[in-house]
């Protein structure tokens, strides 16, 4: 829970400090514009983060329409009528489609979710963006600006949470494959919670965590965390590639290892020592819960 300091963190992408430095400088300058690259963009206004987008994280529109809160038509209307004036979000509230509180909650969740994948890209060979387009604004409009330091702190915390849940980034990008006969989870409290159940139900053996998040209109980070917890519980398969240690900065391309079917099914051994690790983590969690 307490911050362990950036230097001791397991680093999925060694480029985080670079992106972080650029961001810090832009915050100091009170810059307005978009820090952008192939992994997404962070929009700043007066040095604060007002929006973030990443192909990995469902955007506000997807979140609001996936569960039926807004019809796709309502959302498109807001984008086409409010977007040109950089105030699609405001349009929704003013026209009674959404309360201010809903917009703020949904937007903040989307912002922190996308910011995580922008600053900590899933693909090991990608780096956080370093190009800055001054004066660029997002069509959604500012909702609730967040200080750069708060975004960076949250990204570090989320990375720690993932590592603590199950230190194996290979499951992040691989298709989620439920273990067929693992329904008899041991003991009370070990049954998957609602979020994890939804992830399991959406796991068809082909969809990756990011695709499941998009399908459900749910936070991609929360989905990733659920996937890691499911892997720790032994309810989904961990890709056959050896898990890098939490300190290993290079997970060696989880995307390509993930597409291969996992070596052997359950049996007594499972595969690649996963059951033993899983057991150790369950024991650790139980001890921590005492």
């Amino acid at each position, binding site marked *: *829970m307490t911050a362990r300091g950036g230097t001791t963190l397991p680093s999925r992408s060694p480029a985080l400090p670079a992106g972080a430095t650029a961001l810090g400088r832009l915050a100091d300058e009170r810059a307005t514009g978009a820090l952008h690259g192939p992994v997404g963009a962070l929009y700043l206004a007066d040095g604060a983060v007002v929006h973030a987008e990443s192909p990995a994280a469902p955007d506000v529109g997807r*979140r*609001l329409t*996936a*569960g*039926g*809160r807004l019809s796709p038509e309502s959302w498109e209307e807001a984008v086409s009528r409010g977007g040109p004036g950089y105030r699609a979000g405001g349009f929704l*509230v003013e026209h*009674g*489609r*959404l*309360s*201010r*509180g*809903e917009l*703020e*909650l*949904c937007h*903040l*969740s989307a912002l*922190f979710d996308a910011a995580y994948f922008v600053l900590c890209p899933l693909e090991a060979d990608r780096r956080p963006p370093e190009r800055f387009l001054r004066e660029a604004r997002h069509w959604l409009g500012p909702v*609730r600006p967040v200080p750069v330091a708060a975004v960076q702190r*949250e990204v570090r*915390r*989320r990375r720690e*949470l993932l590592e603590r849940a199950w230190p194996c980034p290979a499951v992040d990008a691989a298709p989620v494959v439920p273990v067929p006969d693992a329904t008899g989870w041991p003991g*009370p*409290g070990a*049954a998957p*919670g*609602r*979020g*994890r159940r939804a992830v399991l139900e959406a796991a068809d053996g082909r969809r990756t965590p990011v695709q499941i998040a998009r399908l*459900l*209109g*749910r*936070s991609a*980070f*929360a989905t990733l*965390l659920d996937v890691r917890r499911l892997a720790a519980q032994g309810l989904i398969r961990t890709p056959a590639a050896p898990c890098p240690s939490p300190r290993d900065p290079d997970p060696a391309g989880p995307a390509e290892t993930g597409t291969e079917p996992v070596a052997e099914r359950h049996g007594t051994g499972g595969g690649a020592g996963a059951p033993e690790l899983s057991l150790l983590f369950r024991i650790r969690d139980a001890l921590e819960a005492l």
Partner: protein
Amino acid sequence: MSGIDACLSEAMAIPGVRGASLVDWTSGLTLGAAGDGPDRDHETAAAEAAELARLAFENSAFTRATEDTGPVEDIVVTARGSYHLIRFVETSFDSSVFLYLWLDRAEANLAMARFRLQGLTTELVLS
């Protein structure tokens, strides 16, 4: 009422309240805060309250017991000098947010604070 800030400022008007914050329990992130936090720190309290919230929300003992009536609504912690109230915000899109109140036990009325908290979380997402 509209928005997070208005919600928090109304929460601060509840008798006996020392601090209020809106927290995402997936990670323990504080989305907004007003007044004091326990130990004058909203961030730490938010992260710790989030652990508690996640346990209650995800564990089978609580969710199974309430399967027919819906998920966990709130969590009440009473301590010698204070009350801690956690109320889940129900949204019709995916979210994992609760409103957290820290109250002075000598000045607060638990039943009333809980009732007001319920109203606030409903109004926050009412259009």
